């Protein structure tokens, strides 16, 4: 790939700003609350954009475009069903307890509401998970830099072999993220996430514009794609009549309820952004403000994927992953999506029916290379790198907080002064990033271990929302109930996965290791049902055990449970700033979008 000095200049300016923000913010970090909670001093719109951006990791930009190329507009379910309702719920109903209880983290809320063991399980699993997610983000970025041969030019000039591309990418990204978090803590991470948000919009909007113009707008795109690709709900009544292989019930309950609420309402990575807000009102508005751009994000990330697959094969000046050169033939791919190539033989990889397996993850990179001349290409690549780094930084800031408050202060050294915990937070940032680097290398060596770990995380996360829902809205829920509910939920997820298999998959990591008694039409359907079973098991077991164990006194639950907490007063804000009104507007727009793309 040929980048010119103007591309490099744009990239360098971006990195200078990223680190510069950290340097300027350094003098405002005086105590641990400044470092971990941004001093609870940020306005709602900043927290809102950071709330959105922290989730904009590798999965989002590359993955959603890939999914757009694979499934079409139905991918928007991950936004309009799989994010918006949960974001409204957390803002309107749950934030009063997170923010109002003055808990400094989500595990700490569990400690206040339930007991030490429930917090411990959540804190440890969350800490491990963030380190691995950040490592996976780092790995994906280094891999992409390698595939796109971004560093080949400068390396050739310096006389460095390209085998170093992977190592240099990992090291540089780790050092940049480390630098700005060490300097400015959570404020620095949040400010950079806001910057990244605008950058991603600035980099991808012209791409969508050029792509749509090229294919003749939305109507042109409709002509060139199968009907199922441009309608999000048609064919959803049955798993066999839509490209995703899921039915509407699994979609709404599995994705829209269990997985989405489990993520947006309980994951400290995003909740931390709202906890940094300067008031209760701002904290509640944070996810609602985030929901507005979130709803139109499919435009930026799904459409490029759909355009990439809709273009005629002859349009394919796609990148050849093995040489990094642009070439007209795309090796048996479709549109701008090339076929996956066997690294040793150089031949396209074929599936069981003899069709080439497409490398959908290259949708966005190929779109950038296809439409962007040098100059704006630098902007687009910077936006892509920014999305990876915001995902990494979000995980690292969540990790250092949970480690310091919920593990170090709780179990290792409870009685130190604040300056010590601030120091610990900085140390945790360093070893959190060091562990991510280790995870990134583990991912490059042992792909199976990463798949396995992600599966385990999915089991641990699936039941979480049942615990929070019962904890916040049913005062009778007890610590024992919550703890054993969580364990049973995770066990149920594992058992369900062990008993089922997606169509065409082999027994092993995809399931069936307890003997497959049921086959799902797709892996996605299996995942959704695993989540539904895990949630239900946790919900039922938590209720049963809570009823058998002694309830906590009501006076201890004030501020932690809905029925025992005073409703936050709203007299001082304009009507359009009220969470309930904002929430209703957001839900209305989401419904409208679903109808438009029905």
């Amino acid at each position: 790939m040929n980048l010119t000095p103007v591309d490099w200049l744009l990239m360098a300016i971006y990195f200078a700003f990223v680190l510069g923000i950290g340097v300027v913010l350094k003098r405002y970090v005086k105590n641990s609350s400044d470092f971990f909670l941004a001093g609870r001093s940020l306005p709602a719109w900043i927290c809102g954009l950071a709330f959105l951006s922290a989730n904009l990791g590798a999965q989002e930009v590359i993955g959603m475009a890939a999914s757009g190329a694979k499934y079409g507009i139905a991918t928007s379910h991950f936004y309009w069903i799989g994010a918006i309702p949960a974001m409204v719920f957390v803002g309107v109903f749950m934030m009063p307890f997170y923010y109002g209880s003055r808990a400094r983290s989500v595990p700490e809320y569990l400690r206040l509401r339930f007991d030490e063991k429930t917090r411990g399980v959540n804190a440890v699993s969350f800490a491990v998970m963030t380190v691995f997610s950040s490592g996976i983000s780092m790995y994906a970025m280094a891999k992409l830099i390698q595939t796109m041969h971004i560093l080949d030019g400068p390396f050739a000039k310096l006389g460095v072999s390209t085998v170093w591309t992977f190592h240099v990418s990992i090291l540089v990204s780790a050092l940049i993220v480390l630098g700005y978090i060490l300097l400015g803590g959570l404020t620095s991470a949040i400010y950079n996430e806001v910057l990244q948000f605008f950058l991603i919009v600035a980099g991808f909007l012209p791409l969508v514009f050029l792509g749509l113009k090229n294919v003749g707008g939305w109507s042109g795109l409709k002509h060139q794609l199968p009907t199922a690709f441009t309608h999000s709900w048609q064919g959803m009544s049955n798993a066999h009549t839509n490209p995703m292989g899921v039915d509407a019930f699994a979609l709404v309950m599995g994705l829209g309820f269990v997985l989405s609420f489990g993520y947006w309402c309980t994951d400290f990575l995003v909740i931390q952004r709202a906890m940094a807000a300067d008031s209760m009102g701002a904290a509640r508005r944070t996810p609602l403000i985030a929901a507005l751009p979130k709803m139109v994000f499919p435009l930026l990330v799904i459409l490029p994927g759909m355009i990439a697959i809709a273009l005629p094969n002859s349009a394919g000046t796609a990148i050849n992953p093995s040489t990094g050169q642009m070439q007209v033939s795309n090796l048996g791919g479709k549109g701008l999506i090339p076929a996956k190539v066997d690294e040793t033989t150089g031949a396209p990889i074929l599936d069981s029916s003899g069709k080439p397996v497409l490398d959908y993850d290259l949708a966005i990179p190929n779109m950038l290379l296809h439409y962007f001349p040098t100059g704006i290409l630098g902007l687009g690549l910077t936006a892509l790198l920014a999305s990876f780094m915001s995902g990494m930084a979000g995980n690292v800031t969540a990790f250092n907080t949970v480690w310091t408050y919920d593990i170090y202060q709780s179990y290792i050294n409870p009685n130190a002064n604040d300056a010590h915990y601030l120091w610990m937070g900085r140390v945790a940032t360093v070893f959190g990033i060091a562990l991510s680097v280790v995870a990134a290398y583990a991912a490059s060596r042992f792909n199976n271990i990463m798949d396995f770990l992600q599966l385990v995380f999915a089991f641990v996360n699936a039941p979480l929302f049942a615990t929070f829902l019962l904890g916040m809205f049913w005062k009778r829920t007890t610590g024992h109930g919550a703890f054993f509910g969580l364990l049973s939920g995770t066990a149920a997820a594992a058992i369900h996965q062990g008993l089922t298999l997606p169509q065409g998959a082999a027994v092993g990591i995809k399931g069936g290791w307890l003997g497959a008694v049921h086959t799902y039409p797709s892996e996605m359907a299996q995942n959704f049902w695993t989540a539904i079973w895990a949630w239900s098991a946790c919900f039922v077991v938590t209720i049963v055990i809570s009823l058998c164990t002694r309830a906590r006194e009501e006076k201890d639950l004030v501020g932690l449970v809905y029925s025992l907490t005073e409703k936050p007063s709203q007299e001082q804000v304009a009507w359009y700033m009220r969470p309930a009104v904002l929430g209703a507007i957001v839900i209305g727009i989401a419904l409208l979008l679903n109808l438009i793309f029905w």
Partner: protein
Amino acid sequence: MGLDIRTPIGLMFSVFGVILTIYGCLSDRVIYGRSLGININLVWGLALLAFGIIMLLLGMRRGRGKA
């Protein structure tokens, strides 16, 4: 918080805008074949510059209001 985030955002996008605009004016038109003949550097450079200036103005207005 002492630093208004709109200031660095405004600054960065203004710089990006200026660079892309200048590059758009100087660059050979041949490279715009892939962007459908549109001088996307010039067009988008101007758009980013406008956005950057608006952010800078918003940041400055708040700064003055507080002082």
